[in-house]
């Protein structure tokens, strides 16, 4: 059951993320970027966190039950830090761009072709 819920949630997150990313407003597309990375983190979590019966490194491990995989949580922690860093950097740059160009419309920020 949990697998189905996860698959649906992942699909929704990716769909909303891609839709937001392709918006013209740069702030909205940065938010889409964040949603997509949340989706990937969820995919990492789904790849091993629900295999076992009990949570890892807790008091009730010695009942002969299989523990779930602790590594995926460490991976997600690292991925969250990295994506948070790029999210913050991107927002800061969009902030500067909005002050410099007076707009966050991606069509206004198109001087590179000159």
């Amino acid at each position: 059951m949990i697998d189905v819920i996860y698959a649906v949630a992942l699909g929704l997150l990716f769909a909303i993320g891609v839709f937001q990313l392709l918006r013209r407003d740069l702030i909205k597309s940065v938010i889409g970027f964040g949603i997509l990375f949340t989706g990937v983190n969820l995919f990492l979590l789904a790849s091993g966190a629900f295999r076992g019966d009990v949570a890892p490194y807790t008091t009730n491990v010695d009942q002969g039950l299989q523990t779930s995989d602790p590594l995926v949580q460490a991976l997600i922690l690292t991925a969250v830090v990295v994506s948070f860093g790029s999210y913050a950097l991107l927002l800061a740059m969009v902030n500067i761009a909005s002050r410099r160009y007076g707009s966050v419309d991606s069509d206004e920020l198109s001087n590179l072709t000159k």
Partner: protein
Amino acid sequence: MENNIYILLTVFTPIFASVIMLLLARANRAQRWVGLGSSILTWGFSIVVLLMVINEGPQTYRLGGYTPPYGIVFIADMLSALFGVMATTVMMAGFMYNVHSKEKAVGYPTFIPLFAVMATGLNGSFYTGDLFTFFVFLELMVLSSVAMVAMSDNRYGLEAAIKYVFISGMGTLFLLIGIAAMYTTFGTLNLAHMAVLLAEGERELLARSAAVMLMSAFLLKSAVFPFHFWQPDFHTTAPTAVSAMLSSVIVKVGIYMIIRTLTLLFTVEAPQIQNLLVILGIIGIFFGSLAALRTYNGKRVLAYSTIGQVGFILVAIGWANLQPEAGVAPLALTAAIIYAFNHAFIKSSLLMIMGLVAGQSHEHSVDFVDIDGLGPKLPPIIGMLWFLGGMSLAGLPPLNGFISKFAVARAGVGFGEWLALGLVIGSGALTLTYMFRTWQRVFQTKGEVKLHLLEKGEKGDGWLAPAFLITICILLGVYARPLVVLAEQTAIQILDASIYIEAINLFGG
């Protein structure tokens, strides 16, 4: 040898130096010299690693002493040691350029620390033996380079940086999905352990889709043809030292990982991927060269030329026959390694020279309209260095560009790939055309233009770093034997995946 401390020192010296440089935030000159000192140290360590690998075989370092596949392991075999030496040498020239750079961006207190962080990301992604650690180092490199481009003197730097973070973010997304798919399938992140499991078992569907995801991420990071569109903007607007690194060594991270994953992990899928690489490479060569011919900005010419040169490397990788039972001498893989190694020195020196020219123009750019008549007034050594570098890029003897083009041609003849070989050699002429055109346009045109800095009596010592790199180019061209022999040994070593796997020593020691 296990627990070789020099690998760790090569990776982490720059990031420690960046902490020291942040403490010196008020003293910009001191920052520049500390940066240069740390890069010389790093270069020394990487040379030691290479020598130990040549003499004793692959070296490893286990962080925290955990037995692989648990924990993080750094490994230096011939391939990563050779790429590491390439990266640290070019990085050293970059720091050397920063010492004398007149750019405003280099004067900001965070610029040189970020440059050092980029060096850590670069060295780390070459030495790591673990897919997730590779991702972390790659992001370290990407984010620090983005911050440096956003603070560039060129006023479009910010735009290019925003564009790149979005596109690179998509690449990272694919990389993470690929890593998660591999982890779901095999329950490990260690490259050697994955290789063992892949060789033993049935290939599940998820492993194949992971191969596709990882390959597209690597191709995007090295700006190969269908994923190239961010690269010319990003490399043109970057501060000179950064664009020299981006266009020479950072595009090689993707190339390195393509070689590594093709020879170690996806050996069964390799022929299909390689056919694709040859096609993409040839399209990239023609697209890059033709786009460079119709561009009116010196740095942009070089950025487009990088797309073409990476195409040559991909064609060589695509020709390599990776099946061990075929018994063909690994000519093509040798050619790819030689080409990647030589191209780094040529391209970084050329970009640094363009940066010197840009520093003299009022607009701080090398747009051909802004610099009419500037070239003949510059010190003649700058034009001379550009000429040597340009001829090397076009592949004329006795420079190292000739050796790499010759190696690719020899591999093509060896495999009888006549159509592709003809296309590759023919497009080499395009390189010569656009390098000559740029040389004439920048250094030979007459016009009324005022020098920006030389007028004020400032001498530009900036030519020291490109002169150093061009000297390496000439040395590697005249006395190419050591590099060719090393590249051949590398190709033989990486074709035998068991050497890598034994060096990691899974579940043992």
